[in-house]
């Protein structure tokens, strides 16, 4: 039965269904409602867990790390500056192959200060060695959260569930929550093979010389690549239990026969799908919903791009001085195709800028008739807000001042 729930409240209840033993977090918009919801469940005795409200995100990640290493299922949530503050611990968690789950309520990163949604925070820790799964809807966020614990514990890797801040976290809509029995049947008891135990003392997080570091990284890389199968299997198994899948690694939606594709991550998909259905010109595209950004499903992506002439990759973050972040990765993966589509990398919706229905038409019109890949463009930017020297058409700096 669908319940009218705010995304964050649904996530709080879903996390509780996964029976975490330690939850640790520090407040940051737009993650707060999730953690507040969990705190209420603990206060009411509906969730038996140690709720550790720490003094910083650095400690939030560290407490979750310590708890998971000591043999308890652990959860944390953060966003934006919080993700950056905990970033050294995120690398450390992943390098030690500690399984835990974090919700990232995706938000822009300062400066300038913005509390609104884009993907800059998760992209900043792209190389931390975590699995990153992006959710296109709150229903997917609910179902992905349950799956995340199973994937993490099966693969001995931490999983970041990326949920668009405000757009999803603060939106109230009808949602199906799983039953406790369903979750219990799906999620085995927490187990961490390399955990801390006085009966079998082990040293974790040691110093390695150049003789061993490369091999440690190779092992970590391999584990992430092997997780591709685990992510697909976890989604298929959850679909069998709950009747709802999330599209595995990458889902093709829209018109599978279309010659033009749009690749997105996160909640903008729903907007573009609605826009396509309502498009007065009746234009149809093939949507590629990229759910697993790490590990990056290159082979699945190439399969999904078969028959495409044009692919638009819509980034929700920026690598200043380079351009998009997802775009170049997609291009690199498609290089190996016999007949790759022409890839245009555009970005929109930074710092919470609205992604309206007419974005669909603007994306298609921007690339229409292009006889080569367009230069990377922030498609919804208004350069006239800037001083002339900072505009894209300003002359190059020819010499150092």
């Amino acid at each position, binding site marked *: 039965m669908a319940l009218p729930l705010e995304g964050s409240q649904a996530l709080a209840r879903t996390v509780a269904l996964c029976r975490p033993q330690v939850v640790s977090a520090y407040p940051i918009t737009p993650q707060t409602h999730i953690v507040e919801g969990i705190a209420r469940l603990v206060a009411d005795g509906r969730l038996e867990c140690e709720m550790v409200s720490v003094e910083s995100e650095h400690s939030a990640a560290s407490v979750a790390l310590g708890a998971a*290493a000591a043999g308890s299922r652990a959860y944390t949530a953060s966003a934006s500056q919080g993700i950056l503050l905990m970033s050294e*611990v995120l690398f450390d968690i992943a390098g030690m192959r500690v399984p835990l789950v974090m919700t990232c309520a995706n938000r822009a990163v300062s400066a300038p200060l913005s509390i609104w949604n884009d993907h800059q925070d998760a992209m900043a820790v792209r190389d931390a060695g975590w699995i990153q799964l992006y959710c296109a809807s709150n229903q997917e966020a609910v179902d992905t959260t349950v799956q995340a614990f199973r994937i993490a514990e099966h693969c001995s890797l931490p999983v970041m569930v990326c949920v668009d801040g405000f757009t999803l976290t603060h939106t109230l809509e009808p949602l199906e929550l799983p039953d406790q029995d369903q979750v219990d049947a799906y999620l085995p008891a927490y187990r961490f093979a390399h955990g801390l135990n006085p009966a079998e003392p082990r040293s974790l*997080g040691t110093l390695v010389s150049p003789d061993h570091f490369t091999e440690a990284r190779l092992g970590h890389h391999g584990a992430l690549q092997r997780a591709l199968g685990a992510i697909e299997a976890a989604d298929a198994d959850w679909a069998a239990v709950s009747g709802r899948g999330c599209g595995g690694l990458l889902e093709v939606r829209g018109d599978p026969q279309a010659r033009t594709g749009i690749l997105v991550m996160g909640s903008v998909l729903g907007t573009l799908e609605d826009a396509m259905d309502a498009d007065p010109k009746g234009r149809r595209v093939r949507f590629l919903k990229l759910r697993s950004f790490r590990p990056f499903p290159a082979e699945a992506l190439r399969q999904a791009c078969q028959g495409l002439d044009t692919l638009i990759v819509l980034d929700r973050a920026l690598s200043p001085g380079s351009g998009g972040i997802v775009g170049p990765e997609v291009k690199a993966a498609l290089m190996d195709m016999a007949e790759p589509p022409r890839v245009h990398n555009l970005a929109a919706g930074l710092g919470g800028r609205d992604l309206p229905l007419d974005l669909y038409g603007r994306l298609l019109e921007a690339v229409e008739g292009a006889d080569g890949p367009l230069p990377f463009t922030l498609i919804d930017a208004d350069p006239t807000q800037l001083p002339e020297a900072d505009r894209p058409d300003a002359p190059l700096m020819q010499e150092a001042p």
Partner: protein
Amino acid sequence: MSAETARHDAKTLRHQQPRFRGLEAGHRACQGCGEALAARLVTEAAGPDVMVANATGCLEVFTTPWPQSAWRLPWIHSVFGNAAAVAAGMEAALKQQGRRTRVLAFAGDGGTFDIGFQALSGMMERGHDVLFVCFDNEAYMNTGVQRSGSTPHAAMTNTSPPGTARMGKRHMKKDILAILAAHRIPYAATASVAYPSDLRKKVRRAMDTGGPVFLQVHSPCPLGWGHDSDLTVQVARLAVQTGLFPLVEMERGELIGTLPIREVRPVTDYLRLQQRFRHLFAGDFRAEKELEHLQAIADRNIERFELRGGGKERYDTEGADTVHRGGDRWA
């Protein structure tokens, strides 16, 4: 059996070893490392049913060059600044699991006074059942001797070098014990590697007390302090006997005990053994002034904690430093 024979009898020596060693021999610490000695004493007294969260630093580096480890305890190192938070997470997990294993957090002075300070304060405020041990060697030794919040006034480090315009560190050593005591934690104490029985007693008292407890162990670093490696214990003892490192115990922020000094020594006895204070013996006006400052700090400690003993205390400093192994005396 004569005393001479007993000293060389391996069986007897083994018998005199404590029943448990958390930190084994064979690690890669420098000769005369105060921190290695302190960590061994602490883990011996804490016993085998513990887990350790270790901050980045010498202790982490010299004990765990992969694939070797000198620890007989479950031990985890994460990053520099989060030993207290990792320990808090471990404690929360054990509590939820209903296990009685105790949690220790180990950090140097950098991981306690400076980069680890926020996590430490948070852990203390939240009341986790964790013994946090600071191995205080008064600078960033692992990175090659740079000044920390714990470096004493006027000491030379590579980032507080003396020169024509400076006389070593300009600032004072942070009074970390007072800051921890201000959290009103159940137990906070200072200890020294020169007084092993006192140190063990404090570890046991801390663990018996339970809750968030803190121990600051003065641990000379021959390399960083510039003294001969066979002088570690002597240097540590002089720090206590001069009043520069008072050994005190606090409960809920109140002073409950001190180790009195039988014969107070002038600070120069302590300082002249160490190269890091070499510039204070140049004989010029600036050096004299700094020596006066350091003597004043010691005098103030002695006055504040009433450390001047009458000469007949049961726990006088010379008597308290006898090494007794096996743990019977403190049962």
